[in-house]
């Protein structure tokens, strides 16, 4: 399908890099899901999310980082160190501090690029934490203004927020297609769609997704001989090119009908509230949108993710949950048990797998995932 091919191309080729090579404005590299894109867009910068699942970059980073560090942090550093693609193009890196690895990554990346570290509070529900976070966002404004030379105005921010909200609306329409039975799109293709938004122009991505939704809504629904097993994927983010787990999960007829990754659904899911439209109110709205609905396990309280997974399992009529633990990321692994217990209480089976970017354990993973899918089918 041509519409899908577009998203695959953005993720897997250097198309975006070539486009931005001829671009005269500023490009700002972001990590995680906490960076307010609206702010960057309003100041005329192009936000690109540089999180990576590149195994080669991960190994390269072992020259500057300890070996026993999570693969996401290592490969992010490796790409910046090598000046890969958009990492070489970025004029500034914005790095939030959800975990220890990301905290200490600041100075490491700082050897190669200017870095602005965005401090995250350890919990998100307390008023003091939220006040602190809003200060962090307000302090980010002059940094970006200096970089682009464009002062932040109310009108520009409002326009950027409208753009982000348009993106959110079409994404919810897309999610409804995944909730359909049988699902209109595979989980991996959906992951390509969301991960194309990492680097793609927001307006163009939205238009393309509208076209894809149109196409999917109009084409006749697939009629598989057997009803595919419906899976939910949660846990540590799968980021291109590390799509190993989702490939394996969908290999023999199962469908990942929804994921709960910060590199997937969460990425474009949340709208931003627009009732008060003065500049400080808009900034606060953006700050809250970046912090409050996230389900990152870096926060003390993990209830939000438990609720979120249960809700998605209900709305997408899920048969089983696959929980991805990234080796050496203690945060996701520590929340796995609570998730298992909660889902068991609801009669929902969960498979917890622990892996990393390497292809070595592929066979072993395949056996476990196949057995799980077989169990759900039976």
């Amino acid at each position, binding site marked *: 399908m041509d519409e899908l091919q577009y998203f695959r191309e953005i993720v897997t080729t250097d198309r975006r890099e070539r486009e931005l090579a001829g671009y005269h404005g500023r490009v700002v590299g972001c990590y995680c899901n906490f960076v307010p894109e609206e702010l960057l867009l309003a100041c005329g910068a192009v936000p690109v999310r540089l999180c990576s699942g590149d195994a080669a970059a991960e190994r390269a980073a072992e020259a500057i980082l300890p070996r026993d560090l999570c693969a996401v942090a290592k490969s992010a550093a490796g790409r910046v160190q090598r000046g890969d693609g958009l990492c070489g193009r970025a004029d500034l890196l914005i790095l939030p501090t959800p975990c220890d690895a990301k905290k200490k990554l600041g100075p490491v990346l700082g050897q190669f690029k200017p870095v602005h570290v965005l401090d995250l509070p350890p919990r998100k529900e307390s008023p003091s934490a939220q006040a602190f976070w809003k200060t962090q966002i307000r302090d980010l404004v002059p940094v970006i203004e200096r970089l682009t030379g464009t002062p932040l105005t109310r009108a520009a921010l409002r326009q950027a927020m409208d753009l982000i909200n348009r993106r959110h609306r079409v994404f919810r329409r897309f999610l409804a297609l995944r909730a359909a039975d049988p699902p209109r799109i595979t989980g991996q293709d959906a992951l390509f769609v969301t991960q194309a938004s990492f680097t793609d122009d927001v307006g163009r991505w939205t238009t393309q997704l509208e076209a894809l939704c149109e196409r999917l809504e109009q084409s006749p629904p697939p009629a598989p001989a057997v009803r595919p097993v419906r899976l939910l994927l949660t846990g540590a983010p799968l980021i291109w090119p590390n799509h190993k787990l989702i490939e394996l999960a969908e290999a023999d007829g199962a469908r990942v009908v929804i994921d709960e990754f910060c590199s997937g659904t969460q990425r474009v899911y*949340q*709208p931003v509230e627009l009732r*008060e439209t*003065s500049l400080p*109110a808009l900034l606060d709205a953006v700050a809250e949108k970046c912090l409050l609905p996230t389900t990152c396990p870096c926060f003390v309280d993990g209830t939000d993710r438990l609720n*979120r997974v249960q809700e998605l399992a209900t709305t997408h009529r899920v048969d089983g949950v696959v929980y991805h633990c990234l080796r050496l990321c203690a945060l996701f692994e520590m929340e796995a048990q609570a998730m298992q217990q909660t889902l068991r209480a609801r009669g929902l089976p969960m498979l917890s797998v622990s892996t990393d970017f390497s292809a070595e354990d592929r066979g072993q993973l395949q056996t476990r995932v196949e057995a799980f899918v077989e169990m759900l089918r039976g």
Partner: protein
Amino acid sequence: MNRITVTRRAVQVVFFILLMYGAFIWPRHYETPLPKVPAGVPRTTLYNRNRILWVSGKESVVDLYLPALACRFTAKGGLFKSCILHFFSENFTWRTSLQIMLPHIVWLVVLCLLLGRFWCGWICPMGALMDAMTWLRKLTRWRQIHLTPRWERFLFYLRHFLVWFTVVVSVLIGYPWLGQGANDALFLIYCQICPARLGYPPLGLVNPCWTDNTNSITMFLTVLGWFCFGLFFLSFAIPRFWCRICAIGALVGYFNRGALLTLEKSAQKCTSCGTCRRSCVLDLDDVYLERRRPVVTAPECQLCLTCLEDCPEPGCLELKFLGRRILRS
């Protein structure tokens, strides 16, 4: 888009006209009869035209009170007689017999139990005026001011103090212990500082009697009334500011949790995005914070339903009447 807000504005305008100018629409012109004063009953039973408690001279069309700011002091009387607090303060002072009061009390309690503070959010003309001020502010692009938690706490104690202070004073001045001057001056004490008493008559082109220099108490209350009238205009910067002081609202708020009209939240559907708290005109965080119980109507919640309208999660917030769903996010 914004269907709830548009409906609410329309309802507010309709009730503003009814409660402010009802007597023009359904005229019932007769002079307010001065209550007959038996010997030994304090003079506070009298309306005095030149006093601060000046009454229009025209009675309301319906001889009933409402749990919203339908007011005795509108230009020519309104559709309804007055507000719930006015009912208690005047009748406690008059020592009205329970036989006469009981039907009114039942009527008011039923209204409160049916809709809770929906009365404040949708019916109250003062609320409509304050919403109009917020609308003006947004039009002129001024920024909103948020009260600090300390101020919120102070105003919480203030409004509940005002409810009970009004009730206690109204009962006490029904007896001649305080002396005639004090009794006269303290009649309908809450009305004397309520911005509606100064604000409503000019809207019908009638002089509200701005000053009362009978004695030192009336002069003090005059100044306090001006001050509160000024506070009312703070609603321009702080949405519905007077609602945070209003004793009538605080009184109706006692019924809010038990009311048949409820706002309910599904904790599982909630993503904690905080949109409900951001859109709340009263900066309430009860909807955002609640994780266990389904009913989220706090005593301060006016069921204006902006949170329900803004909530991005389908079905997370629901408006229910007697357990039956009326609206959902």
